[in-house]
């Protein structure tokens, strides 16, 4: 089977763009079949044969088997992100479509980022006494705080919408 490999980097706040890109590949007859670190493997399919969805979620075997029951295939994981695909002929395929689920999804990402920010701050500050390498951790923490801000901005927007409707 014809396959191709694409190396591409997405920042954490770009997961929606990533999913749009994966679906435009699928629409062009290249369906995601495997993922690696910043690497995507595609296989040749009929154009538009698959719908691709991705989600930030810790490994959950029960969830994966639930999705299989729904007709989806588990493609793989990249760090904390899980990728699924389902044949378009089975109808629309979404993982989180209502506001509550989307807010929850963004909150999960925020929680992970906060943990890594605090870890980097802790390591950075304690290393600073012995070496200047601690600065690297502090820079990481700073950049991650920026990521946190981007995700939180998206979440706040949804929460404002949630005050009016579901």
């Amino acid at each position, binding site marked *: 089977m014809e396959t191709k490999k694409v190396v591409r980097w997405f920042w954490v706040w770009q997961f929606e763009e990533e999913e749009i890109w994966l679906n435009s590949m699928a629409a062009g007859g290249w369906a995601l079949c495997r993922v690696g670190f910043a690497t995507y493997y595609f296989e040749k399919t009929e154009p538009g044969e698959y719908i691709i969805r991705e*989600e930030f979620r810790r490994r959950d075997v029960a*969830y994966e088997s639930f999705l299989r029951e*729904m007709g989806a295939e588990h493609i793989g994981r990249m760090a904390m992100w899980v990728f699924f695909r389902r044949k378009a002929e089975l109808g629309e395929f*979404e*993982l989180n479509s*209502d506001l509550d689920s989307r807010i929850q999804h963004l909150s999960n990402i925020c929680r992970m980022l906060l943990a890594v920010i605090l870890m980097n701050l802790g390591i950075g500050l304690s290393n600073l006494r012995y070496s200047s390498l601690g600065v690297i951790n502090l820079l990481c923490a700073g950049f991650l705080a920026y990521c946190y801000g981007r995700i939180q901005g998206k979440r706040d927007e949804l929460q404002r919408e949630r005050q009016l409707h579901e």
Partner: protein
Amino acid sequence: MNTQAALTEAVYYILLSLVTPRHGYGIMQEAERMSQGRVKLAAGTLYGAINGLLDRGWIKAVPGAEDSRRKEYALTDRGREALEGELDRLKELVENGEIVLGGEA
């Protein structure tokens, strides 16, 4: 007096569809059918809602009949009570809406 908080649309349709035992995919199809294609339950939303409803005891897992790999779910008595409470609440909303807006015409 009924002081029950509003159910989400997803939960309402999940409960309603489970008057007859169904598996996940069946719930999704039935909700879509009842709402004439308007309500399309997303897989992750459905998974979260099913687990929440199981924890609350509003639905229960029943042994799958012909295909044992697929878990089936059914409404419990408490789930039916919640659904009936919600129906009363919705009726109140509709009645008041009709009184206020219907009187304008």
